[in-house]
């Protein structure tokens, strides 16, 4: 090919390239031009969401616990920020508001292209000062934004919950979340977040060359709904005060133990506790307290990591009433008691100290069994020393005699081991709500553990398959492939020890069910939801989760025995001088043993009134030392309030289980 020909070919090629460009221009500008005009027109309209005020949270009497107020805030609208001015703007804002420039830059990025974000809440004076020199701050305006206010302070904080910025997952899961608007992170704030959020409004304006040229009428924000709790502020104040006093009382009791040389009972300082008052006929939570608590106001503007980790170390964010899992200990004897009566459990015939014919057991502090393969004796010691005589099931509950309830477990084992009836105790417990989440409308509602052969076999398999698995069965002899469920396990279960664990709320629910004749109600903290003008939007009706068929004579006997616990049993000292209505209240003490390095957990479950049960009251003092000495006095004060008695100061009761 000659040179000039090659040049011609090249020119043809170049011409073709330019023709392609022109055709593309035709396509972009003529064929799609109208659509582009529309898109750019829409783009010049800027919509900014105006956040809705979060709905109120009120107590059952309408008392406001949490609300929202409007406060001036420095807001940056990225539509109106020239990218070149970004750095200067951030520097100026940083200097003005004393916020690190990096933090503001991070918010700027998080808001996204054309996003809007709140830099800081300011007071009126600051707002005025900034308004004076807005020329220096392109894209910045002072806006009234809603802010959460917790009038209740740290009271009820675990029920109310707290706010926080949505995480990336939150934004992915729920549409319409703004990364700069806080959402509920725990408690009612989280569970009822969608009711409380409200709907943001919208301001739209058209921007041309950086100036607002037209504005559409503002769509006002719809405030969130009002959530009305079932909790009663008056009772709550009593419960919270009693709980804190109970923790102090526990430490005093421990000082007393140390003074008498019983250092073993007082290894640690008592710092935690929980209390619940439940309506036994509906499952309504009338009061719920967990200590230590925190003030959710801390989270309103974001919490610094130092304060956060300080509170987190104290487990202040944990709602022990719902999420704490403990051995229910002697409080669980009521379950064994009912099983014994309902199932007509035959007591063992071959053990000294057990009289199956009269259904009495010799509560002399220890039970000797000679059932081991080598014929040696196995001794089960009770929590007391001395001889309480031959006791029937009622007296055993009043005195909290372990040996009687061991005997019930032995009876079940002897009569029904290997048959479907071997789990009568566990089925009673599960029927009453143990071993499963309660279904309460709060977060972190664990199931606790009700052990049986099936569960132990599952644990054994999991642990043998994967040695890395967190060990649930600690005893080596349970891991040799043979049946890991022993008769002793059922004996421990019968007194609420061993692997049995339950949350204070589960205990409250189960006692409510036992007291009301067998109805297991799902506990709840929110009664109803109203819109911001007061119209009823949603009402939480009680939910019956299960109905345990109980002989009402047995229920009446149990209630009578619970009363005897406070009149002459393990809580008699604590309830002395309760008031005229002492005959109409009842309860059960519990002292739970967990690991060796911890002190015993102190329990008391109360029912008031006995004649027509209305409330179940649970007090748990974590490592409180003694149910009778520490938890019962706290419950006594709460029950005095419930029964309309004059409240006495809280003093140490009898150190009983």
């Amino acid at each position, binding site marked *: 090919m000659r040179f*000039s020909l090659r040049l011609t070919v090249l020119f043809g090629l170049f011409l073709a390239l330019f023709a*392609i460009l022109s055709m593309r221009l035709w396509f972009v500008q003529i064929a799609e031009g109208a659509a582009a005009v529309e898109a750019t027109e829409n783009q010049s309209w800027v919509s900014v969401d105006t956040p809705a005020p979060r709905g109120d949270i009120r107590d059952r009497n309408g008392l406001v616990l949490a609300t929202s107020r409007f406060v001036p805030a420095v807001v940056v609208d990225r539509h109106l920020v020239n990218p*070149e001015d970004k750095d200067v703007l951030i520097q100026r804002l940083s200097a003005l508001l004393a916020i690190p420039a990096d933090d503001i830059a991070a918010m700027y990025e998080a808001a996204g292209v054309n996003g809007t974000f709140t830099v800081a809440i300011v007071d009126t004076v600051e707002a005025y000062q900034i308004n004076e020199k807005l020329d220096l701050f392109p894209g910045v305006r002072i806006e009234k934004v809603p802010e959460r206010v917790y009038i209740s302070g740290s009271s009820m904080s675990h029920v109310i919950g707290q706010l926080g910025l949505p995480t990336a997952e939150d934004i992915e899961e729920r549409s319409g979340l703004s990364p700069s608007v806080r959402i509920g992170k725990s408690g009612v704030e989280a569970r009822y977040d969608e009711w409380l959020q409200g709907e943001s409004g919208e301001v739209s304006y058209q921007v041309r060359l950086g100036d607002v040229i037209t504005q559409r009428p503002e769509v006002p924000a719809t405030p969130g709904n009002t959530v009305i709790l079932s909790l009663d502020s008056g009772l709550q104040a009593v419960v919270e005060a009693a709980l804190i006093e109970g923790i102090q009382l526990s430490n005093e009791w421990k000082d007393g133990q140390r003074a008498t040389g019983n250092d073993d009972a007082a290894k640690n300082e008592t710092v935690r506790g929980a209390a619940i008052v439940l309506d036994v006929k509906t499952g309504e939570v009338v009061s719920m307290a967990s200590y230590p608590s925190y003030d959710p106001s801390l989270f309103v503007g974001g919490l610094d990591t130092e304060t956060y980790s300080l509170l987190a170390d104290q487990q202040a964010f944990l709602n022990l009433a719902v999420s704490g899992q403990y051995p229910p200990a002697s409080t669980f004897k009521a379950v064994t008691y009912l099983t014994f009566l309902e199932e007509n459990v035959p007591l063992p015939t071959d053990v000294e100290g057990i009289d199956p014919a009269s259904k009495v057991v010799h509560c002399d502090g220890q039970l000797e069994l000679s059932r081991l393969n080598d014929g040696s004796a196995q001794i089960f010691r009770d929590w007391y020393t001395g001889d309480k005589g031959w006791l029937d099931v009622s007296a055993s509950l009043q005195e909290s005699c372990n040996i009687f309830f061991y005997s019930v477990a032995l009876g079940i084992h002897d009569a029904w081991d290997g048959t479907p009836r071997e789990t009568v105790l566990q089925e009673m417990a599960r029927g009453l709500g143990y071993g499963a989440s309660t279904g309460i409308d709060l977060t972190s509602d664990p199931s606790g553990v009700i052990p049986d052969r099936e569960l132990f076999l599952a644990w054994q398999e999991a642990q043998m398959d994967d040695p890395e698995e967190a060990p649930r069965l600690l005893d080596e002899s349970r891991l040799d492939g043979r049946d890991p469920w022993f008769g002793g396990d059922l004996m421990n279960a019968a007194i609420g020890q061993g692997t049995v664990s339950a949350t204070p709320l589960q205990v409250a629910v189960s006692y409510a069910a036992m007291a009301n004749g067998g109805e297991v109600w799902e506990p709840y903290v929110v009664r109803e939801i109203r819109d911001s003008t007061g119209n009823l939007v949603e009402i939480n009706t009680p939910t019956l989760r299960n109905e345990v068929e109980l002989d009402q004579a047995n229920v009446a006997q149990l209630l009578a025995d619970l009363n005897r616990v406070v009149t002459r049993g393990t809580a008699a000292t604590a309830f002395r001088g309760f008031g005229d209505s002492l005959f109409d209240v009842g309860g059960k003490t519990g002292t739970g043993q967990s690991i060796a390095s911890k002190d015993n957990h102190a329990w008391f479950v109360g029912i008031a009134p006995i004649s027509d049960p209305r409330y179940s009251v649970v007090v748990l003092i974590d490592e409180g030392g003694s149910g009778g000495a520490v938890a019962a006095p706290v419950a006594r004060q709460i029950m005095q309030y419930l029964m309309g008695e004059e409240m006495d100061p809280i003093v140490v009761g009898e150190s009983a289980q």
Partner: protein
Amino acid sequence: MATAAPSLTAVTDRRGNRPDSILVSMVLLLSGFGLLMIYSATRFGLERAEQIPTGTMERQMIFVTAGLIAVGLFSLIDYREYRNFLPLIYGAIILLLFAVFLFPEVNGARRWIPIPLFNLQPAEFAKPVVIVTMAYVLSQSKNPDVVGWRQITQILVLAGLPAGLILLEPDLGTTLTIPFVMLVMLFAAGASWKQLTTLIGSGVIAVVAAFRFDLLQDHQERRIRVFLDPDLDPQGMGFQLRQSKLAIGSGQLTGKGLFEGTQTNLAYVPESETDFIFTAVGEQLGFVGGVILVAAFLVLIWRLLVIAAHARDRFGSLIAVGVAGMLVFHVFVNIGMTVGIAPVTGLPLPFLSLGGSFYLAMAISIGIANSIWLKRSPVPDRLEP
């Protein structure tokens, strides 16, 4: 002697030759138009920042002035002189390309040498140097219409070294200019189809290998992926591409009118005074303005190929072809990028985009081409009887 004198005079006397007035006036027109577009794209932002609205344009005016002086100067230098200094010029540009690595990184790249008044970008000046170098090698063949494998090897090495250095900066767009110009020049020089297909084939293999073995910088690979699917990055580069297309599209047939561009002015389109200057043209002057601009470039290309056809020697011809190829590549890739048919490689639009080194390098290339025109021989209508 006496009879020979007139013809000898006719051959050597080129005082009557005039510069390529179309070529020079196209450059003047494009540069003036470029200044107007830069002003339209930057005025608003500068006003808002309370600076002189003509500031950016005035700065570019300095480069345009310097560039036009360069066109004159390089027109006056006999391009054949470069052959004597080629090793020196080539060596100097390689040194400068190495020197950029001594200076701090700006926006993730080391492309600039800060000198008084402006930041020198050696890669831009490497473009004409590589063209002259390749033209020299290709003009050395004994048979004028044939290219030897030996020559191909030589230009691969001589062009590959600066191309590699520029890729390291990194500056993908400028790097890619070199193989394109090389192919254009080889074709013009008479390379066989076998030679061309071998080169293109190995080039394709090299690109695939670069992808496979991650030889590309992340941002380069990302740019190519985003070009293929802008939705991958709707906020970042995808945003830029989408906004650029919308701005151009919204110009429709005749545009929104000068200074009426809302998209380019409102910073919806970033870099609308540099790499994305065409969005300002498309939005304000529409399809008509865009096609006229493309046509203006075509005229420029046509003149360069005419110069190539009339050059007095193969060296001059090939330089002119190279300059034409370089301009075509810039125009196509730059405008193509703004309308979504070429990847965002950061190639500016000749004579229009804001930028000193680039403008000067283009001006020098035009000056050299004009010198080739001035030295063309003989001038038929000037032959004396």
